[in-house]
């Protein structure tokens, strides 16, 4: 049995008096594809943001690749992590955002090569070559010299996926990556992600409202409500035979809203 690549223990997060995550425990195995589903405000996105160190935590502990994420050893004691530790830990993790967050002043190619060149000291030639391969993978080889503003939403998101992959993270986080897209552009992004899921052994965590995609994509689904995991299991169980009443209620609402599960 290998060590889990992510281990979340008794995680708590509040914004002021609002508790978003309340005593959360879960583990992710290396290479596992995990879908996080649940009503808005259930804390799923916050978990991804915490794993990317875009938030701080209010309590508990997270380990990534066997090392604490928000803690570090100092004189034999465990203390809150400093920026240098977070910087080191971030190398394990990449993220794709709902609103793409491409750098608008840089070309598609520069968007992809910026971080590898700055943070890994890659040569421009190597970074360009790798970016070319990634652009081919996401089907945008002809857009390397374009500015993000010249791309459609689906194209932007595929560039953002290539940008995150360029750093070769062991763990990829996808935060509602199709939610900001026009319906006809969703498919092209999902195709790229399905290919990614089947062709790489990267660990992937996906927050989504596309239940059929979660079902195809994931090895395991976590259903969240009010900052806690209500139910977890393989997609067949969660979508076809949910054990918990709250899961059933949620899926009924989703189906009533017109989604195919």
């Amino acid at each position: 049995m290998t060590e889990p690549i992510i281990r979340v223990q008794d995680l708590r997060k509040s914004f002021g008096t609002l508790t978003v995550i309340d005593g959360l425990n879960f583990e992710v195995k290396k290479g596992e594809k995990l879908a996080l589903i649940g009503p808005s405000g259930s804390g799923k996105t916050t978990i991804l943001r915490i794993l990317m160190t875009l938030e701080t935590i209010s309590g508990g502990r997270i380990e990534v690749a066997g090392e604490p994420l928000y803690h570090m050893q100092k004189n034999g004691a465990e203390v809150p992590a400093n920026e240098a530790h977070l910087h080191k830990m971030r190398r394990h993790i990449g993220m794709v955002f709902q609103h793409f967050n491409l750098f608008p002043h840089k070309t598609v190619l520069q968007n992809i090569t910026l971080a590898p060149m700055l943070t890994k000291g890659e040569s421009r030639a190597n970074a360009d070559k790798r970016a070319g391969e990634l652009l081919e993978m996401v089907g945008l080889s002809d857009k390397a010299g374009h500015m993000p503003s010249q791309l459609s939403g689906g194209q932007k998101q595929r560039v953002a996926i290539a940008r995150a992959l360029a750093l070769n993270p062991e763990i990829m986080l996808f935060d509602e990556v199709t939610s900001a897209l026009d319906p006809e552009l969703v498919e092209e992004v999902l195709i790229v992600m399905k290919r990614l899921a089947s062709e790489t052994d990267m660990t992937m965590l996906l927050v989504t409202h596309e239940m059929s995609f979660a079902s195809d994509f994931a090895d395991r689904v976590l259903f969240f409500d009010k900052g806690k995991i209500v139910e977890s299991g393989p997609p067949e169980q969660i979508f076809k035979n949910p054990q918990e009443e709250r899961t059933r209620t949620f899926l009924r609402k989703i189906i009533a809203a017109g989604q195919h599960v």
Partner: protein
Amino acid sequence: MFWDWDFAISITPTLLQGLKITILATVLGAIVAAVLGLVFAILRRSTNRLISRTTGFVVEFIRGTPLLVQLYFIFYILPDFGLRLPPLTAGVIGMGLHYATYFSEVYRGGIESVARGQWEAARAGNLNPRQTWVHVILPQAIPPMIPAMANYLLAMFKETPLLTAITVMEMMSQARSVANTSYRYVEPMTLVGVFFLIISIFSVFGLRWLERKFGGRAR
């Protein structure tokens, strides 16, 4: 006739000599203001309360006191503490420091106009803070603030006559010394006004151009 063309022409070279100093003081002052303004803006954003509050206090203090008073302090009072500065240096520091507080507000606006997602994308790419500023934030923050910066540059230019007070031989000082020796004020003062006006008019055209180029630029 009231206006003496021969006299006006004879003093023009002296005034142009002063104009050079006026422009030099403006440009150097603007450089100081641009650099210090950025430092103020970044320090004010510090998560360390002591740093951000202290910077905020210093900025408000400088902005809340007249430039002329600050110039007197730098040139006439600092020597009492052992720091004796040449007039132009004192003037550049004084104007630069004063305008840095205005520039820092412009920077603040520019920096805040950059979407939060850009900071997050930089962090997800594991850029360090310096790389984030240099490669992601400032290239997006600076273009929209260029028109406002140019406006302050023009304002600085028109405030340079204050440097007369600390014996900088800029255009206004030259005009005054001409007037004091010849007892004629009309020609030197009129010419000073005309020179300022000419440069201001050209600057306004430049400003309009900058506004068209950067002002309406979509993010």
